[in-house]
């Protein structure tokens, strides 16, 4: 640091290390000026969050204590909506269906996506092409997926049963037999496995080759290398995929609504296709029970929150983050 000795008499008598450190005017000024813009650039997100997320959430919490049909003014009803929710068999069935679907869908999509990602990793130069091909279905609009799978899963004329018949299996009535409706929806959900596959593929690329080689030199088998090297190294991605797929599963709506509720002959699959958000939507916009629908929404929010917190808590035992001690 340079000290100018002739500015004051006192300065001259002090050794340089005792001199008060002078600010670095140019650099700090630049940082200060940049800092001033931080709130400005954050403002769009903050305003968007407050207006389109936090605001509606608070509003729905307030509405959940009212009887509100959207047109008339809301009337305060205390905990009536929550009491009704506690005794609503349909809501319970819808939640049961949703949890059942989630329990099937999430593990299946994780296994399939990881399997595909590992296969892609072995393809070398061709992996880019196949990565794109596998990801493309994820870009299909949910409504189109619903319509497509209504045809594919048709018990009489669908392609899926036609394929099963080739290997001698008499396929079920996926869209009309209540016992097979949810498995059919799980099958449909694999159409969008590409999104999770891309996440895993990126994570697999980051697994250090030297670790694999070291394990191989130590005589580890393929399964041991996968179990003890690959899985720990991608455990962060596994956790992320599990959490987002769980949340998405619990909020499943568009595909199921299109398949089973979009036409006049609604809910032909009986209760089997009654998913929670579909039930919530119908309460809000078909029957105009907006207060009750708000209570339903808050219950779903709490269920998602609890499941996510449990997942994050458990993750501390299983997830490895690079840089951690």
């Amino acid at each position: 640091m340079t000290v100018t000795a002739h500015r004051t008499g006192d300065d001259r008598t002090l050794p340089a290390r005792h001199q008060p450190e002078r600010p670095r005017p140019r650099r700090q000024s630049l940082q200060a000026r940049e800092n001033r813009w931080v709130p400005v650039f954050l403002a769009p997100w903050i305003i968007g969050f407050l207006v389109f997320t936090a605001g509606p959430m608070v509003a729905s919490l307030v509405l959940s204590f009212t009887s509100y049909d959207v047109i008339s003014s809301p009337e305060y009803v205390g905990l009536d909506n929550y009491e009704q929710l506690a005794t609503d068999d349909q809501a319970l069935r819808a939640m049961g269906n949703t949890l059942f679907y989630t329990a099937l869908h999430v593990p299946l999509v994780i296994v399939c996506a990881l399997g595909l990602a590992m296969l892609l990793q072995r393809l070398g130069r061709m992996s880019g092409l196949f990565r794109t091909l596998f990801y493309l279905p994820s870009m299909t609009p949910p409504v189109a997926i619903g319509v497509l799978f209504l045809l594919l899963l048709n018990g009489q004329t669908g392609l899926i049963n036609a394929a099963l018949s080739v290997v001698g299996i008499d396929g079920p009535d996926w869209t009309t037999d209540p016992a097979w409706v949810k498995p059919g929806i799980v099958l449909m959900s694999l159409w969008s496995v590409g999104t999770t596959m891309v996440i895993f593929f990126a994570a697999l690329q980051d697994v250090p080759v030297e670790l694999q080689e070291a394990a191989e030199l130590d005589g580890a088998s393929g399964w041991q290398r996968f179990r003890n090297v690959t899985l720990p190294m991608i455990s962060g991605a596994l956790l992320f995929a599990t959490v987002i797929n769980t949340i998405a599963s619990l909020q499943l709506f568009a595909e199921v609504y299109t398949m089973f509720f979009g036409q006049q002959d609604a809910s032909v699959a009986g209760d089997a296709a009654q998913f929670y958000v579909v039930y919530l939507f119908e309460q809000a916009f078909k029957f105009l029970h907006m207060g009750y629908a708000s209570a339903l929404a808050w219950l779903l929010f709490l269920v998602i929150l609890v499941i996510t917190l449990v997942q994050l808590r458990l993750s501390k035992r299983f997830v490895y983050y690079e840089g951690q001690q």
Partner: protein
Amino acid sequence: MLSTTRALGVAGSTLLALVLTGCGGVGGDDSPAAGGGGGDDPAKPSGRLTTSGFGLGDEIATTRVDAFKEAYPDVQLKVNEGAFDPQPFLSAVASGNPPDAVYMDREVLGTYAARGALQPLDDCVDESGIALDDFRQPALDQVTLDDALYGVPEFYDIRTLLINTKALDEAGVDIDQVTTEDWDRLSTLQEDLTEESGGKLSRLGVDPKLPEFLPLWAKANGADLVSEDGRTAQLDDPKVVEALEMTTGLIEDAGGWGKVKAFRDGWDFFGEKNQFASDQVGVVPLEDWYLGVLADVSPDVPLATKPFVGRDGEPVTFATGNAWAIPKGAKNPGAACAFIKTLTDKDTWVEAAKAKAAAAEKDKTPYTGTFTGNEAADEVIFGEVLDPSGNQAIDDAVQVVLDEQDSAFTTPASPAASEIKDAWFEAVNQVLAGKASPQEALSAAQDKAQAAIDKAAE
């Protein structure tokens, strides 16, 4: 680093974009430039008029809209095309920015009227001179709640019995034996006409069109699902239970719901290989507009038509359709009223039918007429505009439908119309899925529907 001006510009543009992206939907434009309010003279509406729930899909729609534009050049009409969607409609009404006129299914209109989302149209009718006497009374009943009119009907879709004569010939069944009067006979017909191939259905003999046609079968048995005033559910009436037992029995006879529904879902309903052209169905009650589909895509199908009759042998049919209404808070109700009057007026309907007939002639497809809900218009359309197509099956079918018009019934307007329909739909599905008997399912539906009616009436 960005200059101060540029940074502010970027941030400002982003904020502006956020605000602008919040616009849109079905509502009217409340900016001063929009000109809502309709001018000072109610007889000469002006300003901007927005509609929702209506589409300009064919000559029937475009001709009538053009007639309005010609009659009211001072009105700037904006037709927000697309089917009625409750979500944006309710949001628009709640935010005080609704469309000026809305087009919706008559069956759900009572739900919105009871909650105050729609304006009574009695003043509109009186001031604009809408000739209510021209309309079919069951259609008017469907849009009348507590003696106030909330909608002006249009279209009158009735159900008639369509018969695949090829299937009858193959099974050696005489067409005189095909009737909905004798329910035991229907079961025999199901057995005679249903065919399987490789363990799968290849032809469904009699399709009762469940769940949606339960009201028709109940009426054929002498029962209504709801009382005339729409305030009492009658879903557990023994005659309704009997109708559900018989119709679900027909489905069971054909192999069960899973099989039948999956088979039905595979039909090319609107295409050349539809269920009649492909010999996939024997007898089925269907909406009259389907005759137009058949005439268009497969005019040579082996088709016969008979009226749907009750167990007393008298014709009975179920009518549905749409209605125009004016939402609460509409900014230009005067123009909306003029628009509704013009579109549902006898002369406008006749002009639209002429345009449709001309278009059909140009395309060399038969025109099967338009059942408007306006009886006076129907008389001219079927008496003067519609020429025999030369296709005997289609011409006979049109005559059957025309003869059935006076035997149609409608579901009454109810403040809980959606809940009632949902209740009996669920009951039918429970029975079809084998989860409940007709009696159990309809008893549960009765409780649910009545509770919804009582709650809506509070």
